[in-house]
C-alpha cells in the first residue's frame, strides 16, 4: 500500500534486455534489474550502490520512464504513471529530473548554456514571457554557483565541474520533486567532486528535493545519503539507513565491498581486515540459481545454491537478503 509520504514507490521491478543469440541461438535476455522494491520519501536521499553490471543505472532509467520495465509497478505521488497517457507521462518529467555522469556529453554542444538550462521552461511553460524566463535562468545559474554571463556561452568553454553545475541548473529549473543523480560526480576530480556533492546536499535540504543518488563510490554515497541500497546482479542485497548500513553491514557482499575501498590513511590501510571475494562477476545473461551472490560468497552453504533469500527485516528499516545473516559474525565497522 502507498503511504501518503511516499513520493516514489517501486514494487517488484524487473528490466530485461533481449539479446539475439545469433542465427540459430535461442533468444536470451540480460536480466539487468530483478524484482527490486523500495520507497523514497519526499526530500529524502536514497543512495544506490553496486559495481558495474549491478543494474543501478538501468534502475534509474526505469524510474525515469526512459526504459520500459519487464515487470513490476512504479507509483509516483500515489498514482501509476504507466497507466496514464503518454502525454501525461511526458508532463511528469518536470517533477522528476536527472543529472548524468558525463557533464560535457549530456549537454548539447551547439546550444548555449542559457538555452539548455531554459529548455525545460520552453517545454513545460511555453507561455512564460521571455524576460521572466531569462530571470529564472539567471536565478538558477546563480544558485548553482555560475555567473550570469554563462548564459551566452557554450559547454566546451567550461570545465567539467562547471558543466556539471549547468546540468544541475537544468535539473532544478522546473522545481522538481525528485532528481535521479546517475553517477553525477564520478567523472569529476576530488576537489570538484566535493563541491558538487556539497551543492547537491544543500539543494536537497533547502528545496526539499528527493535524490536517487546512484554511484559506485561508497564513500560519496555515505556522505550524501539518508538511506542506502546495495545492488548485486540486479538484485537488492541490503537496504538500510546510512549509519546502520555503513556501521553494521550485514550482507557478506556489503562487507566485502566496504572492506575493498581503500581508505586514505596508511596506518588504517596496513591493519585492515579484508573480506576477499572469490572469482569474477557471473554473466547477467545466466545469473546463478539461488542467491545470486553464492558463487563469490566465502560463507555460502548448500541452501544458498538452491533457495533465493528474501529481504528480511532487522530492527529499524534495515533489510538484508541473506540466509545466514543471523549466524555470521557481527562486525561493527569495516575499518
Amino acid at each position, binding site marked *: 500500500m502507498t503511504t501518503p509520504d511516499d513520493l516514489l514507490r517501486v514494487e517488484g521491478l524487473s528490466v530485461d534486455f533481449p539479446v539475439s543469440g545469433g542465427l540459430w541461438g535461442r533468444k536470451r535476455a540480460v536480466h539487468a534489474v530483478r524484482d527490486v522494491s523500495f520507497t523514497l520519501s519526499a526530500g529524502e536521499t536514497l543512495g544506490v550502490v553496486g*559495481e*558495474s553490471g549491478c543494474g543501478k543505472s538501468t534502475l534509474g532509467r526505469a524510474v525515469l520512464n526512459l526504459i520500459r520495465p519487464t515487470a513490476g509497478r512504479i507509483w509516483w505521488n500515489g498514482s501509476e504513471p504507466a497507466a496514464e497517457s503518454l502525454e501525461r507521462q511526458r508532463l511528469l518529467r518536470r517533477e522528476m529530473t536527472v543529472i548524468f555522469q558525463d557533464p560535457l556529453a549530456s549537454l548539447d554542444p551547439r546550444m548555449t548554456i542559457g538555452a539548455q538550462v531554459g529548455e525545460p521552461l520552453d517545454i513545460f511553460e511555453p507561455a512564460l514571457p521571455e524576460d521572466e524566463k531569462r530571470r529564472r535562468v539567471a536565478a538558477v545559474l546563480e544558485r548553482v554557483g555560475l555567473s550570469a554571463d554563462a548564459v551566452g556561452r557554450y559547454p566546451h568553454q567550461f*570545465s*567539467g*565541474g*562547471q558543466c556539471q553545475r549547468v546540468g544541475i541548473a537544468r535539473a532544478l529549473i522546473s522545481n522538481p520533486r525528485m532528481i535521479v543523480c546517475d553517477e553525477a560526480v564520478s567523472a569529476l*576530480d*576530488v*576537489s*570538484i*567532486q*566535493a*563541491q558538487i*556533492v*556539497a551543492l547537491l546536499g544543500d539543494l536537497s535540504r533547502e528545496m526539499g528535493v528527493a535524490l536517487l543518488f546512484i554511484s*559506485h*563510490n*561508497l*564513500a*560519496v554515497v*555515505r*556522505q550524501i545519503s539518508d538511506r542506502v541500497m546495495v545492488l548485486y546482479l540486479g538484485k537488492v542485497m541490503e537496504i538500510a539507513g546510512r549509519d546502520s548500513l*555503513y*556501521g553494521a553491514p550485514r550482507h557478506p557482499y556489503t562487507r*566485502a*565491498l*566496504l*572492506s*575493498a*575501498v*581503500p*581508505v*586514505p*590513511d*596508511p*596506518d*588504517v*590501510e596496513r591493519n585492515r581486515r*579484508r573480506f*576477499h*571475494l572469490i*572469482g*569474477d*562477476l557471473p554473466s547477467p545473461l545466466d545469473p546463478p540459481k539461488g542467491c545470486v551472490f553464492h558463487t563469490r560468497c566465502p560463507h555460502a552453504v548448500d541452501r544458498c545454491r538452491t533457495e533465493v533469500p528474501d529481504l528480511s527485516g532487522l530492527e529499524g528499516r534495515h533489510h538484508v537478503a541473506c540466509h545466514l545473516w543471523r549466524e555470521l559474525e557481527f562486525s561493527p*565497522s*569495516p*575499518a
Partner: protein
Amino acid sequence: MEAEPRQDRIVLNVSNLTTRFLTPRGTVTAVDGVSFSLAAGETLGIVGESGCGKSQTLFSIMGLLPSNARVGGSIGFEGQELIGLPPGEMNRLRGIRLALVFQDPMTALNPYLTVERQLCEVLEYHKGLSRADARAEALEALRRVHMPEPERQLRRYPHELSGGMRQRVVIAMAMIGKPALLLADEPTTALDVTIQAEILDLLAEQSDSGTAIVLVTHDLGVVARLCDRVAVMYAGRVVEQGPTRAVFHAPRHPYTQGLLAALPRLDDLASAGRKPIEGQPPDLLALPPGCAFSPRCPLADGPCREMSPELLSRDGGCAVACHHADGRGGVS
C-alpha cells in the same frame, strides 16, 4: 624504508624533468621541474587531479610522448640516461627492464591475438625463447598473477575476459621480462572496487619481489594502501613529496591538506562536514603568476601571488613547495 631511498639500490633517478607541449594556442608546460628517485622494491605514488601532469611524467619516463613534446632534465635508469636515447634502444628497454600498465587494459592487448600469443611474443622477440619454452613461461607468468585456470585462459582472446582478468594479463605481460621498474598509470581506475583490491594486492606482490613501481593515480586511498612514498602534483609541479605516512598524517601543503579534507572517507564516522577546495582547476595555458595554487588557497598572500615557491626539503624526509610551510611541519 621511509627515509630517503638507499643510494646503492637506486633504480630510477629523475631530476628536474620538464615536459612542454607546443600547441597552436601556445606552449603548455605539462611537467615542470619534477625530481625524485626510487630504489628497488620501493613504490612511489604520484597523485593529483586531471591535468596536473602526473600521467605526462610517466609517459616522459617511458619515452612515449607525441611529436610536439619537448623533454628537458634528466632521467637516469639503472645508470643510463633515458633522455635522448635512440628509439631502438628505448624499445629494447621497454618490455624487458621497463614495463608499463595502462588504465584501460584493452589499449595494451591486441584484440586479434590469444593471451598465449601476446605473452609469448614478448619472450620470443626479446629473449629468443623457443615456442614451447615461451609457452611454459607464459603459463608461469599467469600463475604468478593468480589467474584462475591459466591453461584455459592461454587459449582465449581479450574480449572473452573480464576487465579484472584483462588487467591481470597486462600485469603478467609487464612482469614477464622481470623488469626493474614498473610504471602504472591509473591501473585500477576502470575496475570495480572488489577487483581493484585484488589488483592492488598483486602490485604489492611485485613490489615485494624487488620491482620498483611508480603508480600514478587520482585515488589517495590507493596511495595509502600501496605506496611507500608519495608526490602530490598540481599544475605540472610537485607541491609536496615525502613518505606516505608523513604526508597523510601531517600534510604541509595547503593543497594536500585540502585534498585530504575534501575526500569522503569510509573510516571517518563524522563524515558529514567534508570541506571542498573552492575554485576551478588551473588552466595550464593561463597560469597565474606566483604559486599556481594561490587563486584557490586560503593562505595566499602577497608573496604567493608574485613568486613561485620552490620545493624545499623539510624534516622527516618531506619536501614542500609553499611559502607558508615552516620547517617543522604544519602550516604556520
